[in-house]
């Protein structure tokens, strides 16, 4: 019970961090889960900024191609979550 609540909390923190990073880098107020990166104003330079921010805040080293023009927010959150949980505690 305790373990699953813990991982749930981690997952939420990841989602929060990703959404906050996207908002800050792209300068948008709303980031819907099904929105695609390009539609939010994202390009390769802003993708690098988002990845850099997540590296600082979550310690995850994501490949450059993990955030493409047609990547949706939900898909990206899933990728980040995977990398975050793969990190040794």
């Amino acid at each position, binding site marked *: 019970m305790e373990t699953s609540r813990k991982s749930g909390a981690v997952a939420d923190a990841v989602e929060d961090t990703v959404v906050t990073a996207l908002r800050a*880098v792209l300068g948008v107020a709303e980031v819907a889960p099904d929105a695609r990166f390009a539609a939010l104003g994202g390009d*390769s*330079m802003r*993708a*690098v*900024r988002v*990845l*850099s921010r997540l*590296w*600082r805040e979550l310690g995850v080293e994501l490949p*450059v191609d993990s955030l493409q023009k047609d990547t949706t927010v939900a898909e990206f959150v899933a990728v980040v979550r995977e990398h975050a949980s793969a990190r040794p505690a």
Partner: protein
Amino acid sequence: MNPATTPGIAVAGTFTLDAVTEPMAVVLAKEAPGRSVAAAPYGQVLEALHDPGSALMTNTGVNVLLLRLADFVRGGGLAELGERADAMVGELVTVLADIPNHSVATWFVAVLPSSPSVAADAALDRWVREAGERITAAVATTPGVHPVALDTLAELYDVGEVHDEYADRIGHLPYTDEYCAALATWLVRLAVSSWTKPKKVVVLDCDNTLWAGVCGEDGPTGIRVTDAHRRLQEFMLAQRAGGKLLCLCSRNNEADVEEVFAANTGMVLSWDDVTAHRIGWHPKAHSLRELADELDLALGSFIFVDDDAVECASVRAQLPEVATLELSRDGEQIRRQLDHAWAFDQLSTTDEDRLRADWYATRDERSALRDASADYQDFLDRCAIEIDFVDLGDDGLERAAQLTARTTQFNLAGAVHSVPQLRALLAGSGRGWLVRVRDRFGDYGVVGLVVAERHDDAVELPVFLLSCRVLNRRVEQEVLRFVASHAETIGASRILLPVRPTARNAPARLFVEQATGVALGADDAPTTVSIPVGDLAPQPADR
């Protein structure tokens, strides 16, 4: 590049430039509409300098080089790539020194801050520092190429984080968006300063501008020169040293203001630093017009500094050509306002700038002598005017370009020339002379410029200008005679004077009319007037 568009800014650099050029485009669109930002392809610096078709070499506006020197060894390190990097820096130094022969643009070269990882590597850190010094030294001696100092940039724009280490690693974006935005704003500010004529006059309010308090009520020692006001006065003194005239415009009794200058030990400015003043109860727009008449300078060259919102609004409404700075009452805010007021910018300061304020200080003696002189020739004789014609070479180009930008009244063709453009004129059949004038009151410095180009049997003067400070002393006639004897020497028979009438160059038009007898209307289109050299052969002084 479309020659019909206004020249803009072209940038080349050693890293991904989008983070800098994007905010540059935004700031430029606001500050200089119609101009645009272009970038060389990623990582191409030497290519952009060598290729005559590159965004930089085809640009006639402002070119910027952003050099992060550790990038020269990116991907291999100093041990592996050091030799190649040395060669690249050597090549860069050579090409930069030769830039004025290939480009008419104004160039800015910035060496960017090293990343923390470089500072941690002693050998690399030393290499970067030495390479930076080589480049800066090469730039400092090249006319038309300016080094960009970035030491205080982060502080100036309150940038928290300069470096973005991970973005550098995966995207070659070494600096944060915050720092790039500050850099972009600074570069546009420099570009705009190269396109704008520097202001000549700063008109300062007194109460709550030069000091805190009201001198008529608090008394000369009751008002307070706070830290912020002391900094403001120091700033204005530096502006004066850079060539701007300081004037006062205050609603006060004149004696009360003078008393502050005499009695308050906190004052940095002295009464002698003030070139002219209007202290009384007239509306300030009226006083500013009077000051412009008295100094014989256009209101467009004025900056007005006042803490009173109503005064500022009134001057803005009545004299929109004056740059108005509404000063805060908050000390910290005042410092920021002065740091970010572009109106005070001046790309380069010449010896003549430093002399100007002092020259105006002796103006009264001069007009007193004129009044006392029985006749005008006598006045001129007693002034003992000496005119020197100094061959225009590389070391005079900065001043020459500045003269073309600033001289509005006695300027026949009226075109602004950059340092490289002047160099190009001289590289062809052209010759140029700086006109240096002194009289018994002192040295005016270099106050005129004439450039002569040979066209068949004629000598054309694409540039003929004189500062209004030396007009009506027969200097203009002497310059024409000098050119005539040059024409005679090289076997030309006519002198061609291109004239472009403008709203302000009436003195130049009048001179051409008197010298040639050809009437030029005020609204005439650009024209070229021809004078036979024989008409200008040395004449008795009464002519």
